[in-house]
């Protein structure tokens, strides 16, 4: 095992898969030799693999994904980067109407092994167009897989699975997580889709959390421990497919669930998880389902405003205490 950051783990996954399979190539805005990606994930890869396979594109999100789709259905494995997740809105047709549906619509004649990497998340004061968490849009689109890694281990393993797999994957990175460190194996490994990971075992309450919120949930669990509350933290790792079994299993054990996500509350990821619990585990609940999510506002700029809307340890602890 070795210690690494999520940023480096993602780069390792890209490098190893590009070495393993000549059909893998990268495209996106400023991912090449001058910037190496706005968040540095692809730094050094253009020098290593050349400008053809690490391809800087015009500022054309729709065509970045469209070109990815065209390449994916004709034998290649493109990994497209959208510089900020918010900008995926510019490519919604290509992501949701083309990439996601192309296999179904054409009666399984073709595979579209396209990976779309993009960072979501607030907390760095870059306001409404660079801070959103829009996972629910893509979770709501049949035909896409959605990955939401929270650790270097999961990030590298899930990205490798995405590149090797034959389905289009919307791969969410969280911009605050890039420097976060963790242990990963020296040798090749992958992480399966649709298999949640219990990041902390507990008995009194289940805290379901994704991406950066996993880390806040773990910090909250540590605080709760001091107050005699044993919290279990469940990280789904992928939202599509969703490991419903793991959620139900944890709720059966604890009888309580607090769902923590960084997207806004209405019709968000937390709403879907609450529905799963209500449909499949209601009888095991000893208290109402609680959700901790962002209020239904755009992400504001000014630090006190922004910090107010992002769920934190205190809001998670407060929600837990309301039901234990």
């Amino acid at each position: 095992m070795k210690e690494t950051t999520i940023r480096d783990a993602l780069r390792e996954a890209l490098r190893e898969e590009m070495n393993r399979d000549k059909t893998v190539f990268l495209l996106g805005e400023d991912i090449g030799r001058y910037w190496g990606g706005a968040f540095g994930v692809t730094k050094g890869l253009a020098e290593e693999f050349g400008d053809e396979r690490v391809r800087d594109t015009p500022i054309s999100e729709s065509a970045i994904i469209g070109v990815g789709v065209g390449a994916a259905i004709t034998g290649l494995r493109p990994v497209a980067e959208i510089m900020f997740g918010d900008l995926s809105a510019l490519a919604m047709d290509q992501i949701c109407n083309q990439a996601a549906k192309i296999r179904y619509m054409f009666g399984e004649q073709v595979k579209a092994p396209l990976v779309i990497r993009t960072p979501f998340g607030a907390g760095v004061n870059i306001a409404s167009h660079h801070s959103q968490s829009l996972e629910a849009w893509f979770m709501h689109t049949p035909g896409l897989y959605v990955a939401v890694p929270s650790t270097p281990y999961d990030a590298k393993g899930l990205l490798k699975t995405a590149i090797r797999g034959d389905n289009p994957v919307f791969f969410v990175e969280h911009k605050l997580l890039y420097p976060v460190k963790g242990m990963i194996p020296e040798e090749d490994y992958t992480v399966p889709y649709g298999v949640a990971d219990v990041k902390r075992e507990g008995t009194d309450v289940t805290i379901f959390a994704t991406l950066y919120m996993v880390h806040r949930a773990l910090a909250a669990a540590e605080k709760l421990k001091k107050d005699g509350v044993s919290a279990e933290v469940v990280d789904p790792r992928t939202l599509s497919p969703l490991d419903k079994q793991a959620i139900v299993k944890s709720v059966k054990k604890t009888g309580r669930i607090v769902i923590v996500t960084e997207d806004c509350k209405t019709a968000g990821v937390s709403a879907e998880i609450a529905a799963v619990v209500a449909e499949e585990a209601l009888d095991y609940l000893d208290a109402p389902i609680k959700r901790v999510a962002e209020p239904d506002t755009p992400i504001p700029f000014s630090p006190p405003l922004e910090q107010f809307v992002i769920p934190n340890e205190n809001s998670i602890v407060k929600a837990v205490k309301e039901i234990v």
Partner: protein
Amino acid sequence: MPLEKEKLIEMYRRMLEIRYFEEKVFELYGQNLVPGTIHLYVGEEAVAVGVCANLRPDDYITSTHRGHGHCIAKGADLGKVMAEILGKKTGYCKGKGGSMHIADFSKGMLGATAVVGAGIPIAAGAGLSIKLRGTDQVVACFFGEGASNQGTFHEGVNMAAVWRLPVVFVCENNLYAMGTRQNLVMAIENIADRAVAYGIPSITVDGNDILAVYEAAAEAVNRARQGGGPTLIECKTYRQKGHSRFDPAAYRPKNEVEEWLKKDPIPRFKAKLIDMGVLTAEEDENLRQKAAATVEEAVKFAMESPFPKSEEALEDVYVEEESASNR
């Protein structure tokens, strides 16, 4: 480069097949046998056939909601196209796509997208794939003049241009985007003018003259195959029917329709072939009977085919992967 008789007759035969096929679809629609809607290619046959006559079986095309003609021109099986239009299990897409989403990947037909302009970047992506794989295939990308107002046109053509991708952009300018006449939404007359903005060659041709389309496409395909990058070909044409279903197309002046009917690409090509001495009236009659028979056969196959089982709606959303992690 003079075309051989065999090639000319083959092109004529394809045009007849498309025409008869579309007329049959219209007839079946009138009998309530076609679910949903239809967008017929009647009147535009010279474009698809003139372009595809330059393509190899391993070349690609992308298509639109008005795509039956593109499929047939690229060599698709008429029975499987008709079965798809009727929603049958034996259709190209097992009844999941319908008239607006026909694909035949075995023939390089990368599928029809019903989002106007969405196929343009996808075609560029197929072009990039060709370039990265190092083959000498070519992509022909069909779209209407209305699609050239979409951002995807600008983004896709620009990318193909800057990367010199082997794509031939074929604009079927039939003057109307649904019911909106071109001059209401564009300050230019020729879509080909837009190529200047991307630094690629372009040409405007009479899209109802198959030999003009063929020649323009031959040059563009050749350029693409030799690594010379993309070309924009604008084919001025006209749809003889309405936009969809029973659209009476009342927004079109009567004299305009009459003028274009006089320019119907099939009688024009026939006259030309007779003039060139490669077709006789008797041979024409034979070809027509054969085309009609082929279409009848396709209809029979489609009509006799079963509908898919309802539960099949749940299949094919994802590629089944035993364990993606163990691949």
